[in-house]
């Protein structure tokens, strides 16, 4: 046997084991990719909810969302159409994103737009909407969408 050519059972088994390891590693990448598609789906749903909030804010009377000072304020909506409450501390809401209940934050702040009323620093409202699409509420682009716009009163 020693001088015969060919492969031994051990060599075949080692080969199969190597292929199995490579297959499992590849499958992990597939799973990661599929998980990413799922997260992207939740992100799209969150984006629509954020857009929905901006539409609600665009449609509302501007006087009902004006803060009393130039600090950031948080808005919450009750009812339909929205009845707005303004608070000066972080006030999250819970909304349905797809099939999940997620966190939403709506902020409003006076800012200066030189093209609107020169010299007046509180002539424009900066509106921001954050909607999370993961259970992790880390405040970054991997966990929430953030849409911003300006509105003149």
């Amino acid at each position, binding site marked *: 046997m020693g001088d015969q050519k060919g492969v031994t059972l051990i060599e075949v088994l080692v080969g*199969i084991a190597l292929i199995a390891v490579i297959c499992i590693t590849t499958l992990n990448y597939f799973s990661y*990719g*599929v998980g990413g598609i799922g997260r992207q789906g939740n992100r799209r749903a969150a984006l*629509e909810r954020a857009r*929905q909030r901006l539409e*609600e804010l*665009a*449609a509302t009377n501007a006087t009902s969302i004006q803060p009393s000072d130039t600090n950031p304020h948080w808005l919450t909506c009750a009812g339909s159409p929205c009845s707005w409450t303004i608070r000066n501390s972080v006030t999250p809401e819970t909304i349905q994103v797809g099939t999940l209940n997620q966190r939403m934050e709506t902020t409003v702040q006076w800012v200066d737009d030189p093209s609107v009323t020169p010299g007046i620093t509180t002539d424009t409202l900066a509106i921001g909407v954050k909607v999370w699409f993961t259970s992790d509420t880390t405040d970054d682009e991997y966990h929430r969408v953030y849409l911003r716009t300006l509105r003149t009163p």
Partner: protein
Amino acid sequence: MLELLIAIIISSIALLAATMPFIAERVFWNTGRRQTEAQRDAQMVFRSMASFARESSSFTTGGSSGDVTLAFTRASGNVCFEGGSTFNSGQLRRFDGACGGPAPTILIDGVRSKVTQFVVTQVTANKLVNVQLQITHENRQNETLQTDLFLRNAT
């Protein structure tokens, strides 16, 4: 010969074992693709509606639960969106003019993607309308999106 037979048997078992995860991965992959395409189709409908809603001064809703209409009144010509689970096998169309008019634009074709739910709810008369759209892609993947549309030129 015996070694070769054992190697073939072991290889066959290993291949069979590996087949199941690959089949599962294919199912996951197709699920993800359908989900993405269903949401993309729904988003395209929303963007189309939003672009006309911005220019409109008022809107009206009508139809039945399976065949809903959302019509916008514009200075440059009215536009109607019609769709639902019973409308042309789940289509959603845009008519330039009155609902049911000639030469519509098909937004959801009812074949590749189908509308399984199209709900239009007035939030504020002639100013803000809520739209919920559920799309089924390749008869398997349901995705629901909802948004509000603001009529900037509302009277």
